[in-house]
């Protein structure tokens, strides 16, 4: 059985993002790293490999240009068995709809997939949509915000989902797509043996032709979202005033007057 982990390369979380007048986004010389949320997905896949009887292989995939290798190498250094980069110039400009199509085609090509794991979202675009979209396309059980995989066998799994109201225990047949969330585990550091493996491993590239992707379903053509304009939100302006009168009652009265004048209350 294959466990597939979908990863994305993102700028480091400490990067300072900037948008120029043409709408081009840059992040200075900040390094490109594996999306930090994806480390939880990789860790969970490695833990599951140890838990499940039989021959389980963890395959990490990433759709992206050359820089996506960074995410794949990190995952291999953590202990994944193999990595595949999926890219084609035709994929440029893909939104979550088109991305989920490409990933689903690649997962089908890998074959014998029992589970697909995702981080909760990518720290750059923060949509969190791709996991569910991939599940829909593949017909797999979609489970998001998973904080614990309690039980798993060859046919089904029981998981705990972290919701605002509390935890929800759900059971789903396999194959499933699992969106992990922070707290599900503590991602391991890459091992030095893993680092050696990662720098020597092969990273096959699958193009549109390799996964049989239709031209009208990828890139801008396959996307439902159009980026009309990209701009940095205006810097917040504000000023603070401390209301300090002789008594608390007097301070409160002045504050109420000011709030009324500003039409806040």
């Amino acid at each position, binding site marked *: 059985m294959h466990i597939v982990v979908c990863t994305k390369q993102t700028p480091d979380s400490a990067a300072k993002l900037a948008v120029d007048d043409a709408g081009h986004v840059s992040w200075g010389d900040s390094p490109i790293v594996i999306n930090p949320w994806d480390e939880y997905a990789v860790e969970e896949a490695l833990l599951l490999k140890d838990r499940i009887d039989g021959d389980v292989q963890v395959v990490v995939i990433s759709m992206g240009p050359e820089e996506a290798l960074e995410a794949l*190498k990190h995952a291999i250094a953590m202990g994944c068995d193999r990595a595949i980069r999926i890219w084609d110039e035709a994929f440029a400009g893909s939104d979550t709809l088109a991305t989920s199509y490409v990933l689903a085609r690649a997962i089908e090509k890998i074959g014998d997939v029992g589970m697909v794991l995702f981080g909760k979202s990518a720290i750059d675009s923060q949509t969190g949509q791709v996991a569910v979209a991939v599940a829909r396309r593949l017909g797999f059980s979609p489970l998001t915000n998973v904080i614990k995989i309690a039980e798993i066998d060859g046919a089904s799994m029981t998981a705990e989902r972290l919701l605002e109201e509390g935890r929800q225990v759900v059971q789903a047949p396999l194959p499933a797509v699992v969106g992990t969330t922070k707290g599900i585990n503590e991602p391991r550091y*890459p091992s030095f043996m893993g*680092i050696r493996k990662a720098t020597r491993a092969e990273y096959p590239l699958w193009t549109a032709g390799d996964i049989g992707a239709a031209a009208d379903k990828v890139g801008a053509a396959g996307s439902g979202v159009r980026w009309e304009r990209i701009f940095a939100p205006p810097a917040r302006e504000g000023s603070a005033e401390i209301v300090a009168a002789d008594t608390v009652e007097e301070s409160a009265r002045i504050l109420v007057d000011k709030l009324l004048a500003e039409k806040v209350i």
Partner: protein
Amino acid sequence: MNFELAEEYQMVRRMVRDFAEKEVAPRAEEIDATDTFPVDLLRRMGELGIIGLPFPEEYGGSGMDYMSLVIALEEIARVSGTMAIVLDAQTSLCGEPIYLYGTEEQKRKYLAPVARGEKIGAFGLTEPNAGSDAGATQTRAVRDGDEWVINGQKIYITNGSAADVVVITAKTDPDAGTRGISSFIIEKGTPGFQPGRDEVKMGLKGSLTSELFFEDCRIPAENLLGTENEGFKQFLRTLDAGRVAIAAMAVGLAQGAFEKALAYAKERHQFGRPIAKFQAIQWMLAESATDIEAARLMVHRAAWLREQGTRFTKEASMAKLLATEVSERVCWKAIQIHGGLGYVREAGVERMYRDQRLCAIGEGTNEIQRLVIARQLLRE
């Protein structure tokens, strides 16, 4: 010509930095304040393979190389000088001579647990009357049947009082000067081997700097490390690598202090603007960054020469001399940029200043380094 670190080394740096920031940095201040030996962090560095970086896997190592250790030392020192010296003593000073000169059995028995951090290691050379002048070693080892009988005293031994495995030097031919010194492996608990007190130091608090006493301490004949009477040559080679390690530690401390100073200079406002806008501060930052860059390049080159298997005695001494003077200057400026805050504990730069001071003394004082460099120059 390529000055970029190979990808493997970049990944090592990222991994060790991640560990250092998550697990070492939050403890650095407490380790300094309480002056307690962080044995759990030493074990953790073993578990993660950091101690074993330069050793092959069959001896408990990670199968990387010395360059990786140098990078790891930089990263650990960037957040804690104490953990860097603990790592240095364990790997460079104790593990390295066993790896270089040990028999297959010695490597399996002693190096493997030291590399995995299961046993604590130390190296004992300095004595009350011998340090820079190693030929004046007074500790004696006398062969008695199948045993060696050791008598003498060592001082300033890093990791000393906690060590399970100690490599020491002792005179085996008292009339032969430096040609009459040999190395031995001694285990904790051997009758006649007794650790003494731990020194109270200026910096690197939490690391142990101990006295070791040997009184009719009997060890099996097979605990001789390397060749009899070649101990001096052996530890000179160990020290070449050790000097690069100390230099890497100095670079790391300088880097850590510099980053704090840079961040503070941008945050701290005086006369209506960040102090980084003032030329006086800018010059200090520019000088520090340049100093660190130069020191790091020298350290990496010395480590690289070692990887090539070529002689690197001069380059190791040069790297240590420069890097440790750089750490002094950079940490001094980091305190100066912080002003009053730099002198109080909270900012952490005074700790780095105290910690780095050892680097110009340990593994050969900088005066000895100048001597070594000059000797090499005049010989060439």
